[in-house]
């Protein structure tokens, strides 16, 4: 998928009539196919030798009598271990990439990212609170919520940060983007300091849990986890296409977007709540997975242009593809052990991002 997007980048300026919607539709179709391939590969790669043919065969035959495409052991591995992990990867990859694209549209800045305005830091604080204090101070709450406690705490942390941020940055119904970015840095610093205190208090076992959670991983994906965060992510993703037209208008500035008939304040509010929900839910299950939100929309803008009507769905698809790819690398590169996926996305994403900046210095106006 990556190769395809880069190949498209070189031809941007040749669109003679300036209408890139046809190319965008083709790209989205190709990404759909790519995602299907990535899902199938993820389901079949690993220690068990279930082949792609047998997995598809099993799926096609379903509950038909005499379906022996997969052995009982392979079926267990594919459906109870790999499928939840793949599902989670798709959801989180899509959530991170779309959140990045929406934030960038909202702030009119191609470098904006949910990590930047403190959403991720707030969500982390919520999650770390549960990990460290779950057995003591917060015991009544965690025992009541069970496994839902961690995702809920992260979600609440992310949302609370965003709401405070929004209050600080909004005067008389107008949100100042500059204030919001600066306040986001301050709030992120505060959340990280509080997280630091909690880490200082943590015992050895908790420290190990924390480290692994913070580095980000899709390991330990279960249908139960998906049930707790999946609906939040799906709901947030479903709302975002309705923002596309408004975000396009916002590229011309808030006043002009208003002149074009966009209810700007409502647009901003919807985008902020949607992003904090999607990011909070993602951080809760997989910790910090960086660079997906910046690299994916960047690549796609080079290939199909910045029109959010196509950029948002394409980001969801490419984000999902790339996260599955990163997860495959994380699972296999130090097998039988497993690398946290956040390390993979950072090692691949950071230099790649720098490369894009150098190569496209003229086109991307920072």
């Amino acid at each position, binding site marked *: 998928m990556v190769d395809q997007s880069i190949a498209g980048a070189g031809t*941007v*300026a040749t*669109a*003679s*009539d*300036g*209408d*890139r919607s046809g190319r965008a539709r083709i790209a989205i179709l190709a990404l759909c196919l790519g995602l299907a391939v990535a899902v199938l590969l993820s389901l079949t790669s690993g220690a068990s030798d279930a082949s792609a043919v047998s997995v598809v065969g099993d799926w096609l035959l379903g509950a038909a009598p005499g379906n022996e495409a997969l052995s009982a052991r392979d079926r267990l591995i594919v459906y109870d271990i790999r499928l939840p992990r793949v599902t989670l990867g798709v959801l989180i990859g899509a959530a991170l990439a779309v959140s990045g694209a929406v934030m960038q549209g909202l702030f*009119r*800045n*191609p470098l904006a990212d949910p990590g930047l305005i403190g959403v991720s830091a707030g969500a982390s604080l919520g999650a770390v609170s549960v990990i460290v204090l779950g057995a003591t101070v917060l015991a009544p709450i965690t025992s009541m919520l069970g496994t839902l406690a961690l995702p809920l705490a992260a979600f609440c942390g992310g949302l609370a940060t965003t709401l405070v941020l929004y209050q600080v940055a909004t005067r*008389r119904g107008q949100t100042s983007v500059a204030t919001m970015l600066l306040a986001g840095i301050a709030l992120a610093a505060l959340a990280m300091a509080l997280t630091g205190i909690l880490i200082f208090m943590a015992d050895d076992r908790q420290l190990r849990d924390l480290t692994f959670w913070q580095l980000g991983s899709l390991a330990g994906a279960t249908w139960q986890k998906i049930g707790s965060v999946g609906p939040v992510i799906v709901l947030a993703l479903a709302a975002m296409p309705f923002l596309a*037209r408004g975000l*396009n*208008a916002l*590229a*011309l*500035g808030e*006043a*002009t977007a*208003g*002149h*074009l*008939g*966009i*209810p*700007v304040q409502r647009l901003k509010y919807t985008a902020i709540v949607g992003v904090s929900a999607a990011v909070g839910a993602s951080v809760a299950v997989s910790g910090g997975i960086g660079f997906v939100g910046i690299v994916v929309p960047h690549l796609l*803008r080079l290939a199909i*242009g*910045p*029109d959010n009507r196509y950029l948002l769905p394409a980001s969801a698809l490419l984000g999902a593809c790339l996260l599955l790819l990163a997860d495959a690398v994380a699972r296999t590169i130090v097998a039988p052990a497993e690398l946290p996926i956040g390390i993979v996305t950072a090692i691949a994403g950071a230099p790649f991002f720098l490369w894009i900046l150098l190569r496209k210095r003229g*086109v*991307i*106006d920072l």
Partner: protein
Amino acid sequence: MIEARDVSVAIGGKGIVANVDFDMRPGEIAAIVGPNGSGKTTFLRALSGDLAYSGEVTINGRDLSVMKPVEAAMLRAVLPQATTLSFPFTVREIVRLGLLGGRSGALPGEDERLPERALARVDLDGFAGRFYQELSGGEQQRVQLARVLCQVWAPVLDGKPRYLFLDEPVSSLDIKHQLIIMNIARDFARRGGGVVAILHDLNLTAMYADRIFVMHRGRLAATGSPQDVLSDDLIEKVFDCRLRVGVLPAGDMPFVLPQSAV
């Protein structure tokens, strides 16, 4: 019909515009002139619904303060002084945003071709595929005008006039394109729409404006036809500059007026 009664605007507790009355009828170009910092842009922003104001503004008899953005977008389009972009949109993609809010008023099925037609009107034929960020300031301004024209393509919609609000539409243009843009404004007014334009060039103002509103220190200093308003006394009072109207340069000093265009 646009009517503003006793409009005042304060930004951050500081009064910028005070007690301005403003009327314009469809079919007219109303020019707002005045020195830098006299409140022209602030007043136009209030008229556009961007800023809170005291007093009353109605467009076609409807109170601006209770209009939703999408309702206002169907009545008027606004050209800002300058627009910068952070993303690599093509010219066509920008112009097409003019069709976003509502009803261009073009014949059914013509909307898809409007960006090209609007670009041709502002003398940017063949620019549709270029990147906006790579154009010169004057070209960018004309792209934005093409976008604004798409939004209110028909000057009259459902029997009601529509309006163009232009903030210094010719400030970064060469003389040829100044005339093209002002002729587009005049054409829009002759076909039943209304134009409110902030202008700095008094000769262009005299040539195209049906009515001039002169602003000075946040207040209205004079209103009327160019003949009534542009006098030696008013120019000295408002612009703090002793100039005489209608005096030719001495000797063989060349001068070029837009009025001489043939």
